[in-house]
């Protein structure tokens, strides 16, 4: 018996909502997101991955195995400028060798994603789709991502100071649920404005000179809370204002326009681009120092080559600007307690420094 076609994709923070929304509207197939990430996911992923590949590969592979077990037949994977662009083929090979029967689709393998390219990819799954239809839903999804990121930015700055526990998280969950039922631009905009007002009206108790910390580093560990052991939640519990630049809006469209500006800003340190997101993080280190932030947290998967290349430069920036910085590196064997202890020590240091 041939299985009913079902599309699935790996997790990346809350972005499963816009991705699911997009794929549902572009194809006639059923779309499911991978089951939520658990310890089991990363165990599965690690078991079948090459030994010293970076941790996002292992999470993605674990996601794929779990979702294939749920009956998915078409898998989507994206790509980027570092090792990420080569994930698709290796993961496909590993899963096929494990005996799974599926079709692998990919967007953006070390290439710039254009609408035309996307159209060709989707056309393989849905012959009836028109270019207009595709553009419409892609744009709508981009807006959804943009709104989500805007709300997230606000939440990160303020969640550490909420007077009622979980008020932000609960409202955000409600918002995401309503976003997934979007019907068009107007409905999306009204939803966004409604929840923006609601979230801004939540009571906070924020002192003027609160501790401010910036999170910089690699994209997957920045955006997938499970992979950084819920670092942002930890920081919120410590009553810290958090700023993070890396999000889907930045990677998809903002980065292109900012590269020249960033390069100029850090001319003293970098003559050239460092590859992948290395240079961005050098820029952020300098930018946040100038903005009066109290500390920086740099996170990355173990062995992330672009970030390793950028780290000595980031360290130099921080030395020059007298900015405290702590480096975290995540692997499947990273101990949660170790991270917590180091984070607490960092927090104490920042507090004493601030006086």
């Amino acid at each position: 018996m041939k299985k009913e076609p079902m599309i699935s994709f790996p997790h990346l923070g809350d972005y499963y909502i816009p991705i699911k929304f997009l794929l549902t509207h572009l194809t006639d197939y059923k779309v499911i997101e991978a089951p939520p990430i658990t310890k089991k996911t990363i165990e599965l992923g690690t078991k079948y991955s090459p030994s010293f590949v970076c941790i996002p590969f292992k999470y993605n592979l674990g996601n794929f195995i779990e979702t294939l077990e749920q009956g998915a037949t078409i898998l989507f994977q994206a790509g980027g400028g570092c090792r990420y662009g080569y994930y698709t083929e290796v993961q496909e090979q590993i899963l096929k060798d494990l005996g799974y029967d599926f079709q692998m689709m990919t967007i953006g393998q070390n290439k710039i994603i254009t609408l035309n390219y996307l159209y060709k990819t989707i056309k393989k799954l849905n012959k009836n789709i028109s270019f207009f239809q595709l553009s419409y839903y892609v744009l709508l999804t981009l807006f959804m991502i943009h709104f989500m990121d805007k709300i997230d930015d606000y939440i990160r700055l303020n969640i550490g100071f909420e007077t009622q526990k979980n008020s932000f998280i609960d409202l955000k969950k409600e918002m995401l649920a309503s976003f997934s039922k979007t019907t068009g631009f107007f409905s999306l905009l009204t939803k966004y404005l409604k929840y923006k007002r609601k979230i801004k009206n939540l009571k906070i108790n924020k002192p003027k000179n609160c501790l401010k910390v910036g999170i910089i580093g690699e994209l997957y560990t920045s955006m997938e809370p499970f992979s950084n052991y819920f670092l942002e939640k930890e920081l919120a519990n410590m009553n810290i204002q958090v700023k993070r630049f890396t999000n889907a809006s930045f990677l998809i469209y903002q980065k292109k326009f900012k590269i020249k500006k960033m390069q100029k800003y850090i001319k003293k340190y970098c003559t050239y681009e460092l590859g992948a997101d290395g240079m961005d993080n050098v820029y952020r280190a300098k930018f946040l120092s100038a903005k009066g932030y109290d500390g920086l947290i740099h996170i990355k998967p173990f062995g992330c080559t672009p970030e390793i290349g950028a780290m000595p430069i980031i360290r130099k920036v921080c030395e020059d600007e007298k900015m405290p910085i702590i480096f975290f590196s995540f692997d499947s064997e990273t101990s949660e307690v170790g991270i917590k202890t180091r984070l607490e020590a960092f927090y104490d240091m920042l507090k004493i420094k601030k006086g």
Partner: protein
Amino acid sequence: MKNIKIGIPKALLYFKYKELWHLFFQKLGCQIIISSDTNKEILENGIKFSPDEACMALKIYMGHIHFLQNKCDYILVPRLACLKKDEILCTNFSALYDLIKNTFPTNIIHYNVDVKHNKTEEMAFIKMGKTLGFSKKESQLAYYYAKSRADLNKIKMLDEQKKLLQQKNLKILLAGHPYNLYDQFIGEPIQKLLKENNITLIFSDIYEENDLNEQVKTITKTNYWTYNKEIIAAIVQYEKHIDGIILLTSFPCGPDSLSNEMILRKIKIPIINLILDEADSNTGLITRIESFIDILEERRKRNEERTND
């Protein structure tokens, strides 16, 4: 006229471009100083100045830069981002120049190749010549001279390696980045061990450049690292003429982690992947290599018996 001392670290890209660099600077009349072979002191200094998780090859490179400090006027640190359209190099090579500049307070001479942004090797060398105070014509001539000589040398090496394929004893392809294969600390001990066991060594950095993309496609369709594609092409070219393959990787090499996985899954002849890091003792390696040689010998015997039957 001028007597500029150029220091070249004997690590990373040195093993790929040594002829080109040598001839270019010689032709311009510069003096060349090459750091000594990697030794314990260089490695230890390298570890001191590198991020913890950098690959062993990069750590060694940092050690060589440290060695050359105050011994020359300029140290050559190339910045290579993209050599062919739609391909990239490991991001370490794009970051190399800025990385060294921010770590060591020393004079650096560099050149930048980024084909994607229309910066070819020729232009880069001319620009480098200009910073040293030579005219465009002088540098251009020196580059053409060096490039053609280096290319000729490559052809000669290929011919010699092809002759080796005719030999009757066990033949093993040592596959990996040149900076791993020929480094005094990474590849040399392994080369020595294999030669002691009367094995003919074939090297993956000597290969035929024609049809490279077609050959790579038989193993992987989307690989985009130029240096890894070269390794894969070499494997495809020699696969039928050798008994086994040893894949040499320095821990934790980014591109190799995925590229090797693909090779290991697709290649059908005996193959092992040796991963080296600075904390390794050689005993484990020796045991693995010796047992690999035993397997190859046994396999050959069986094959001969089968053909005799």
